């Protein structure tokens, strides 16, 4: 394709359709639309939850009723109609699967289309997958192997039943229901999610993984993930998301809470590929997620994400560096195309002595999309010798898109060292010229530059995910990445 020009690339970018747009025809158990106390009681009773959790939900609902939707983000959208959403949708057969063969063949097909076929995963990667389809975890593999080490990795509802003490102790400690509008909503109506506990001193031998997928039309997905790494343990957790093609905008308001106790390390990687709407900006997922990690002494939490989907993204994975000498990291690539809007970034709250944080954020905007970085670095009074380095770069592919940066840097300690740098530009003509001069076609040159641009982040991803992330980048900006 030596004759491939930038104009053709632009044309291709415009026409990119969503490749995961299919609806699985699985019978699902959906409750009536609307939100009130009865609906919450119904969700709670359907899931056979204990009383304290119902109380927690109702309290969150009270808080939510008094809150208003935030509108400070740099995004424009039609506010979701909260009474027009069904708050629970589960595949009809909720019975437990004894073995992989018991799983509905149609569901297997869905997973195959996603490119994460369980068989393949089991055989090739040794990854334990907790597959979440419309809010209920349907299959969990490698459980026995994890059991031996005392690692708990199960669906959230299972954890409520089998490990209520752990759930009760940590639920809502990092993201309280009062945190924000969507966190309150999630705390009231969360359907399911994943729960993970790594005992003291255990190094989880494999990458743990969940795959979220929204299937039923008009349902919101309210996931709840809780990962607890006990003292001196290590876990790498992978999360991937896709949603089928639908015209109405679907709401996704999840909460992810990470707790790294003393000297523990959590690596949380996300590949987000929700349906971004078609090329006219119709449909797509609203992704309003609250992700936060609590770092205790000498612990480390690292967020890595590749975001290519969602019509609206509103997400700030954060670290509260409470313990002395703890470390927080955030690596992100966000790609927006067509009419997508993303307002994303990270918050690093330095509370302990000698805490360190790194933020590397790379945005690529194309089509008529808007991509904003919004970050907070806060050094508190007690955080002596804290250190932060932030870099956020934006790459503009068309003259109709936008790239914005809104960093907040707050420093209350004189021994802190904070650096922030951001650049915005299009692919340099001199860079292109340099590559072409050395015999690369324009397409290959663009591919080389974009790949190089994201390399810092992709290198931080676990192997299996990096491959998928690269694939997604290629899909989202097809023909620009070589």
């Amino acid at each position: 394709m030596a004759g491939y020009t930038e104009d053709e690339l632009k044309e291709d970018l415009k026409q990119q359709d969503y490749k995961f747009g299919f609806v699985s025809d699985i019978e699902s158990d959906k409750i009536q639309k609307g939100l009130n106390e009865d609906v919450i009681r119904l969700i709670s009773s359907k899931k056979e939850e204990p009383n304290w959790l119902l109380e927690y939900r109702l309290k969150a609902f009270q808080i939510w009723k008094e809150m208003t939707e935030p509108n400070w983000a740099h995004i424009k959208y039609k506010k979701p109609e909260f009474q027009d959403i069904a708050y629970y949708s589960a595949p009809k057969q909720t019975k437990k699967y004894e073995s992989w063969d018991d799983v509905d063949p149609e569901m297997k097909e869905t997973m195959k289309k996603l490119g994460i076929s369980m068989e393949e995963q089991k055989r090739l990667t040794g990854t334990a997958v907790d597959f979440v389809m419309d809010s209920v975890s349907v299959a969990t593999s490698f459980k026995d192997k994890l059991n031996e080490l005392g690692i708990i990795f199960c669906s959230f509802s299972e954890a409520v039943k089998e490990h209520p003490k752990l759930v009760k102790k940590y639920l809502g400690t990092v993201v309280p229901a009062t945190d924000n509008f969507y966190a309150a909503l999630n705390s009231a109506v969360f359907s399911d999610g994943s729960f993970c506990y790594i005992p003291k001193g255990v190094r989880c031998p494999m990458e743990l993984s969940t795959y979220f997928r929204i299937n039923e039309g008009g349902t919101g997905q309210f996931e709840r993930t809780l990962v607890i790494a006990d003292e001196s343990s290590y876990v790498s957790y992978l999360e991937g998301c896709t949603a089928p093609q639908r015209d109405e905008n679907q709401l996704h308001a999840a909460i992810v809470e990470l707790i790294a106790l003393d000297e523990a390390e959590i690596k949380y990687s996300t590949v987000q590929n929700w349906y971004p709407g078609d090329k006219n900006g119709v449909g797509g997922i609203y992704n309003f997620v609250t992700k936060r990690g609590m770092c205790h002494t000498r612990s480390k939490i690292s967020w890595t994400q590749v975001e290519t989907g969602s019509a609206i993204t509103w997400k700030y994975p954060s670290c509260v560096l409470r313990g002395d000498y703890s470390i927080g990291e955030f690596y992100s690539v966000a790609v927006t195309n067509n009419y997508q809007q993303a307002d994303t970034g990270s918050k690093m709250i330095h509370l302990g002595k000698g805490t360190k944080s790194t933020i590397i954020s790379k945005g690529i905007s194309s089509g008529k999309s808007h991509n904003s970085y919004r970050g907070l670095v806060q050094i508190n009074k007690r955080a002596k010798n804290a250190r932060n380095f932030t870099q956020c770069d934006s790459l503009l592919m068309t003259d109709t898109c936008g790239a914005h940066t809104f960093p907040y840097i707050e420093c209350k300690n004189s021994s802190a060292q904070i650096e922030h740098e951001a650049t915005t530009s299009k692919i340099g003509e001199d860079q292109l010229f340099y590559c072409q001069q050395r015999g690369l076609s324009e397409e290959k040159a663009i591919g080389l530059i974009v790949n190089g641009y994201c390399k810092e982040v992709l290198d931080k991803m676990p192997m299996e995910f990096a491959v998928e992330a690269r694939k997604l980048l290629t899909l989202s900006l097809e023909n620009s990445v070589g």
Partner: protein
Amino acid sequence: MNKLQNFRKNFNPTSIPLRKEMLTLSEEILKKNDFPTTKNEKWKYTRLGKLSRLSLEKSKDTSTIKKSSEKISEEAITIEIINGFVNTISDLPKGLIIKSLKDCSKKELAFLGENIHLENEVFHCLNSLYIQDGIYIEIEKDTKLKEEIHIVYNNLSINTFNPTRLYINSKSFSEANIVELFKSDGAENSFVNPVNEAVIHENAKLSITKIQNEEGNNFHIGSDTIYQKKDSFFKCNTITLKGQFIRNNIYVNINGTNCETHLNGAYLMDGKQHVDNQTKIDHFTPNCESHELYKGILDEKATAIFNGKVIVHPDAQKINAFQSNANVLISDDANVNSKPELEIYADDVKCSHGSTTGQLDENAIYYLRSRGISKRKAQAIVSQAFIKDVFSHIDSESSLSYIFKTLEKQHNWEFLD
């Protein structure tokens, strides 16, 4: 009655015949609003609680007072403003018009407020509605002023609200260098509210240097709105040497191609001083460049805020915009909040911003001390080295020597050239 209405009750609308629409709109906006709180993104780090609780009176006409304040230079064209009233204007050269707003024609007054936003800007409204005096400056076409224009604002009053207005009309191919010195000799609990607007026509050059050296417990909320036309040049240096509560808003609208804009700032604060620098540069047209450099040193319980915003509007291609903010914290009680923002809606641009917060280089201080220089002096030398690149943008020799003299007095610095 909210705090703003309560604050307003002691003042009468201006007697200067300004444009009616501006006055009615200001009145309407003030009626509907209150003082901004920290929930307002623009006021996130600056609290107006203390100011809003003051019960201030309007300042009395001081134009007859014969008191000459400290001047920066004898050679410059000097205008003295006391408590918001024009006191003296020195002799003017050819091609330059300077007059008090009281002496302006209707046609000249009609320029006022053309480019100023009133919506969401309570302090612009207060100023428009309650000014008692101000200055109109016009630099005629092709006039390249050799002398600098020095405006000395002196605030002498206690418990008063002193709004002033400055309108600068830089006609095409003109060049001017304006220095504004803000002082307050013996003032207490006063609120100074200077609002400046400037239109820089084709090929004109304007540079403004603001020196803020205000004693006493006073409030200063000022703003500059600049409108740049084709091929023009604008530079603003904001040097804050002292001030209990200072807020500087600078809005630059670039509406022509090939413009150049420089905003520089330095702040050296200690005690419980508070300085808030807000800048916003709107690039509406292609082929322009803007540079921002703000540096500060904070000691004791001082607070500094930097919020810079660069907006590149659609179709404003080939823009180079750079923004840099660096802070040094000397004490653990000092506070710094930095928010450099970029909003970009065009693709062929080069924009970047950087922000750092840190300490003075210990190795450099150690080096100096090992050569027999005292700790204090070593700190002073390293601080100077840090902040001096902002001073290098000041063209006015006399203001530079004023700044150096003040710093020598305030911080025991010795300037070695």
